[in-house]
């Protein structure tokens, strides 16, 4: 082997760090200081890319793309894979709803905000469990026990949720962080939902409070109030 020069060893070390990441399935973190070795870096990426002769999208990513294709419109911003993954995980555990406190005999229609309420924020997930699996679960909470703006943790089968009273509405939202599937806790002193895994926070409406790295809002969970005032959540 030819003798090694110090600058070549430095370049080799740097290249190895980049390639080790890529070979581990992580992003290529090349920077302008790597431009001198761009041909080698690109070739390394190509070699890494040839490990799979027929790479296929993951099912979760394919579903997300299907949404983009079906709507024909780009999302508000390009959502990173990480955010998309978080959103996908959230969808698995939550669906939407809101219910009038006044005498409900039926359900509020999905995706239609109650009259006089704030319109639903764009792109907030609106889903419900498959018909065969969904069932209304009694939370054991009477509507009169709900204090304005103070969430209560409830469980409806596989769905963990918070229900919160907002004026004449009771709103339900998933208790799962949209970053990673960690269960949120309500911090009354700060009036935020806190993700214990990474410290991310959401306000009482379920909107992300992290301005640097905003996450999707917590998916809404369908809620209704029975004639006798008991709060029910659509779970599994």
């Amino acid at each position, binding site marked *: 082997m030819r003798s090694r020069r110090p600058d070549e060893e430095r370049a080799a070390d740097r290249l190895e760090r980049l390639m080790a990441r890529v070979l581990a399935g992580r992003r290529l973190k090349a920077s302008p200081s790597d431009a001198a070795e761009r041909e080698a870096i690109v070739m390394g990426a190509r*070699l890494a890319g040839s490990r799979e002769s027929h790479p296929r999208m993951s099912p979760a990513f394919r579903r997300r793309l299907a949404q983009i294709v079906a709507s024909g419109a780009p999302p508000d911003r390009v959502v990173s894979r990480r955010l998309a993954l978080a959103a996908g995980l959230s969808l698995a555990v939550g669906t939407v709803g809101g219910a009038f406190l006044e005498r409900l005999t039926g359900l509020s229609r999905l995706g239609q905000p109650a009259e006089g309420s704030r319109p639903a924020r764009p792109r907030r997930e609106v889903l419900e469990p498959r018909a065969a699996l969904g069932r209304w679960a009694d939370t054991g909470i009477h509507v009169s026990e709900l204090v304005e703006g103070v969430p209560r943790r409830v469980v409806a089968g596989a769905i963990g949720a918070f229900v919160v009273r907002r004026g004449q509405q009771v709103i339900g939202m998933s208790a799962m962080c949209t970053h990673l599937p960690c269960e949120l806790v309500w911090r009354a002193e700060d009036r935020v939902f806190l993700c214990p895994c990474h410290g991310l926070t959401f306000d009482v409406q379920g909107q992300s409070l992290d301005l640097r790295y905003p996450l999707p809002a917590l998916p809404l969970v369908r809620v209704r109030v029975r004639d006798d005032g008991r709060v029910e959540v659509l779970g599994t």
Partner: protein
Amino acid sequence: MGRSGVWRARRGPDDQMNGRPDGQREPSPSEGEVVRLPEPGDVLDLALEDLELVYAYVFARVGNRADAEDLTQQVAVRAIPRLRAGASPNAIRAYLFATARSVLATFWSARFGLPEEELREDLWVEPREPDAAGPVERVERILDRLPANYRKLLELRFLRGYSLKEVARELGTTVGGVKVMQLRALRAAAKVASDEEP
């Protein structure tokens, strides 16, 4: 909107199936219209299958799923709204791949802090059409033209997933030696690729 919804496509003077997908002129919303295609489900499936090909194309160039998914999504977000209703499948695919090349150029340009034009000149050796041969075959062709020690190192490290230590043991050298040889081997492979894919 679910799968049963319509495919929205803009029609306008700038709506071209060929050419630079990230052109400066963007039709304003007033120029656009919503077009209901006869069989939206088929079109959706068609587009998704094409995006599978785009994903494979991108993955073969960036080598990791995370970047490949981000870039494929960028292609979808950028290209799908501009597709013209009634376009042939070939035209749709050509436009998606043109967009993918543009997105990839931007990706490398941002990584290396170089203008895309410069990358095209000395690095951007992408074929204009989707690979006739698969990425594996193309890489094998490149490896075949390398010296035996370079070829072996790259095969062990990149194709078989050996660690540096394992490669060093296999080649009878040190980890430091493998790193330097890896750099030289990748430079040599890049030179072969640029000679082979003008």
